[in-house]
């Protein structure tokens, strides 16, 4: 009954209601769309950072982070492998890597790079290595002569698939070690810098080049889905690992490894909240104004209701109910539009037209907007909660109308 | 010489899906200086006819001449200018501009006509005194009684010396004493300024004042009476 009355009251002035509904719809819609874009940007920087060989957790020699040199390697990888094979949550993947600075050269060029020895079977799930093969193919198990490099590096070396690349580095005994590899394929990374930085060879080839036997530089771990992005879900895994890890090794999360990124994401979150608030305030002016108009032009009616014995609380409730109807319709349509927009852009937004700019901000080339349930909830909660709050003003105004002044 | 010539005018409204024939071929002429009433029950087409004569509305069929000029088929802005310069309106619910004072309401019409400020204010004062509102020139409508507001409306209608004043049930919202005062005043204006007045009314008293009563029924002239 109350709801019926509210519904009809809302539609007494369809034009006015329409306009404020449009305002609410646009508010909810743009909040969601912008949030999705921001999430996409955040996820893109996070993904791109995690993908750039960080992973969610790394097992390292404690000195490696400060000084990623061959000296600071895992000298006894077998127990680590055994531990990781059983202690990780279901759906996780992990792999050993060997990492060393070096120089790649061919007949015409020579450039400093990072040599990464990888497990050809496990690595594709772990990092950008497996994401986008631009040309050729990835390394196959046992392909100890193959090398995969970034497309940008290939271009700057003016070479092609099947050609040679000579890697030179300092081995564990600080002697110069070098070896020629055949280019099997190239990868595309989110950032050109990454493409120019890393070359991939097999773990065995890297171990041989560096003369480190079965030793590795680190173990990189990726937890299933998005769980690895959340500190709360990450910590128990790290704790469990740390308990059983050999004493001389340490487990680090991406939050430890990339503290700047964490700060950046935190700022983004705060900025989003601020953005909600700003959009909401802009909307609230219209909402209050509309409700105020609706209330004041019905002064007589409220006077009459009061004369009929309606308590002020009931009147406040009635007005708020009208407000609620507006908000629910607006939010419904706004959410729908928002979700639709996100769906339309689910293929991703190509940022490559701003490649240098996005690289500067650590962004990937493709931003895929998305929202989490939490975002959906917070957008709706902000509009609904604060919306009802500001509507209290016209509601109280309506409740304050006395029968006498209403009849005049 | 006729002030108004209405020739075979009919007007059909669409009310929802039903066509309402407000006027069904009315013809009449009103001479200059007449003080004339359109009478009839509500729905008989009085107001419609008045609106058509005033150029507020356009007939479905037929022609209307005002001061021997045809006004049917003119553009909105031509009509607006005719209304501004030749016609004064008085409405049942006064319809004076609430944000303007009595004098400003009167002056506004002259402003639109492009009368200089000085002359505007002199003429406004004079006409307001004339309609019996001396001392109330600067009151806002909310501070005036119904009768006084309607006097402002009359002042506004006649200040620009229109050829014709159209009054749509001017006394309907007034008590009889105030109504009578207003009518006396209008009759005086009719005599003194030789302004043509056409009323629509079903008020006995108004008809008593009129020199000619045209009775409408179902959109047709049913009866005419000249005193």
């Amino acid at each position, binding site marked *: 009954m109350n709801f019926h009355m509210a519904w009809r009251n809302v539609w007494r002035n369809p034009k006015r209601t329409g306009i404020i509904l449009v305002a609410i719809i646009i508010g909810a819609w743009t909040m969601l769309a912008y949030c999705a874009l921001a999430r996409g940007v955040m996820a893109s920087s996070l993904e791109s950072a995690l993908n750039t060989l960080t992973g969610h957790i790394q097992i390292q020699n404690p000195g490696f982070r400060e000084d990623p040199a061959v000296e600071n390697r895992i000298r006894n990888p077998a127990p680590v492998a055994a531990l990781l094979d059983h202690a990780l949550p279901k759906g996780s993947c992990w792999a050993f890597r060997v990492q060393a600075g070096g120089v790649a050269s061919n007949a015409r060029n020579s450039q400093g790079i990072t040599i990464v020895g990888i497990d050809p079977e496990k690595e594709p799930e772990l990092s950008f290595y497996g994401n986008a093969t631009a040309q050729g193919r990835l390394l196959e198990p046992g392909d100890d002569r193959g090398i995969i490099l970034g497309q940008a590096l290939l271009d700057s070396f003016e070479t092609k698939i099947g050609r040679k690349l000579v890697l030179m580095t300092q081995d564990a005994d600080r002697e110069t070690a070098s070896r020629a590899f055949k280019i099997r394929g190239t990868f595309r990374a989110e950032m050109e810098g990454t493409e120019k930085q890393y070359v991939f060879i097999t773990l065995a080839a890297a171990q041989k080049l560096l003369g480190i036997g079965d030793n590795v530089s680190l173990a990189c771990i990726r937890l299933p889905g998005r769980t690895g992005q959340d500190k709360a879900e990450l910590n128990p895994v790290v704790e469990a690992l740390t308990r059983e890890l050999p004493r001389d090794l340490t487990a680090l999360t991406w939050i430890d490894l990339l503290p700047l990124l964490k700060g950046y994401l935190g700022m983004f979150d705060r900025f989003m909240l601020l953005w909600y608030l700003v959009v909401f305030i802009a909307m609230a002016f219209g909402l209050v104004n509309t409700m105020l108009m609706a209330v004041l032009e019905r002064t007589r009616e409220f006077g009459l209701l009061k004369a009929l014995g309606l308590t002020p609380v009931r009147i406040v409730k009635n007005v708020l109910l009208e407000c609620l109807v507006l908000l629910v319709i607006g939010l419904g349509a706004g959410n729908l539009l928002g979700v639709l927009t996100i769906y339309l852009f689910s293929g991703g937004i190509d940022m490559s037209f701003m490649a240098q700019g996005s690289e500067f901000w650590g962004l990937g080339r493709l931003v895929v907007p998305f929202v989490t349930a939490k975002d959906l909830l917070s957008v709706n909660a902000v509009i609904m909660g604060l919306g009802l709050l500001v509507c209290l003003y016209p509601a109280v105004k309506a409740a304050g109308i006395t029968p006498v002044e209403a009849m005049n | 010489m006729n002030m108004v010539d209405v020739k075979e005018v009919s007007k059909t409204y669409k009310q929802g899906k039903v066509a309402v024939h407000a006027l069904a071929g009315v013809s009449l002429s009103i001479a200059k200086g007449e003080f004339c009433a359109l009478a009839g029950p509500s729905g008989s087409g009085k107001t419609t006819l008045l609106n058509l004569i005033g150029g507020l509305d356009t007939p479905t069929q037929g022609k209307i001449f005002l001061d021997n000029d045809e006004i049917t088929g003119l553009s909105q802005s031509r009509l607006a200018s005719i209304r501004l310069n030749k016609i004064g309106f008085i409405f049942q619910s006064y319809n004076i501009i609430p944000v303007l004072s009595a004098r400003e309401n009167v002056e506004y019409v002259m402003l639109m006509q492009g009368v200089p400020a000085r002359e505007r204010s002199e003429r406004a004062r004079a006409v307001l005194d004339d309609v019996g509102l001396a001392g109330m020139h600067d009151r806002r409508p909310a501070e005036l009684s119904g009768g006084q507001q309607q006097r402002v409306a009359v002042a*506004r209608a006649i200040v620009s010396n229109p050829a014709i004043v159209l009054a749509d049930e001017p006394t309907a919202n007034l008590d009889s004493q105030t109504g009578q005062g207003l009518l006396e005043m209008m009759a005086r204006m009719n005599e003194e300024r030789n302004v043509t007045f056409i009323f629509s009314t079903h008020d006995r008293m108004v008809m008593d004042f009129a020199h000619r009563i045209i009775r409408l029924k179902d959109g047709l002239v049913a009866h005419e009476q000249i005193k």
Partner: protein
Amino acid sequence: MEILMAWRNVWRNPRRTILTILAIAFACLVLIFMLSVQVGTYEVMINASVKTRTGHIQVIKKGYNKDHKIRQVVSDPESIAKILDQTPHVTAHTFRANAFALLSSDLRTCAGLITGVDPERESKISNIVHTMRKGRFLKPSDTNTAVLGALLAKNLKVNVGDEVVALGSAMDGSVAATVLKVAGIFSSGMDDYDRSAIQIPLPHFQEVFYMENAVHEVVVTCDSLWHVSRVKESLAAALHPKPPAEPTGQDADQGLVCLSWDELTPGLIQSIQMDLGGGLIFYAILLVMVAFSIMNTFVMAVFERTRELGTLLAIGAGPGRLSKMLVLESAFLTLWGITLGILAGCVLTFWFQHTGIPLGGAEGMLKQYGIPGLIRPRLTLATALSGPALVFIITTLTALYPALKVRRLTPVDAMRAV
């Protein structure tokens, strides 16, 4: 009188009017503040890059910025300095010389970029002086003394007081070598730079690399970013007094060019454009929100008063007159809102310009981009007025809808309305 009428109409419903004005003012305030923050941030970013690395303008040998070849020198920098001393808006200038070299400590060897700087003049331009983490910056009396980036120091495993050997190729192709004493370690915030940069006094650099009086860069800073292009033009004109159509003469030999900071670091300007683009989406959304928020006020101004408007039509007011009146009314609201918004926005921005906005956890990340932990908005005429100008346009457009709608009103229908 029409202005009077509009004015009175505006205040017929003071509550609504105030709310509408506040909405407009709010939009102005947000726009002014946000734009100022953005401009402030960009200025800091640009300044950080300008101050640690490029300066506002550099005079270099053509092509030197693409490929740092040691032989591409400015052979007579003093003559350029003389020109600069007389160029208005130039606040400071200094010389730099660069060379790639092999740096080695007792424990490690790696490649780095040695820059010879004039300690005294450099400190007026570069903020490296202010980012010293350990030790001190170079002094004019120093000879084989160096300051180096924190990451380079970490790679070399050296600390203040340790020695670093630099080995490179001098300008004449001979071996350039020197032992440098680490006087200080800086952390400019830009990792790339901190990983490779080492600075030594210019005279020592010129001695070691057999540069004589030649340098690679004449670095210039201006009093404001906005004057950079002007200074650049006058400098270029002074460097090339003859029209470039004649390729003869000594200009062609010298082959010097003037480059501004945006040409020297193209990634920076694009990153700013991108952030600005994101900001523009934000502003557009905000403006649309405000437009719909205030539209009801304008629309109601017509609907509530349809009857009154009908009367005006009846007594001979043309539709144009009504539109004008409505536009006047909305203009009142808009102007009030904008004035209020500009005032409040300027006060707020000005306040934060003085106190700064702390960034908490994000400090570190911003440092990476050369932004200090405190963001200061920068209020300029442009940031104070461009936002409100946008608001003005959008509210006027919003007001246009009812103002045009009223033209379709016929007196009879209008007066029949409730």
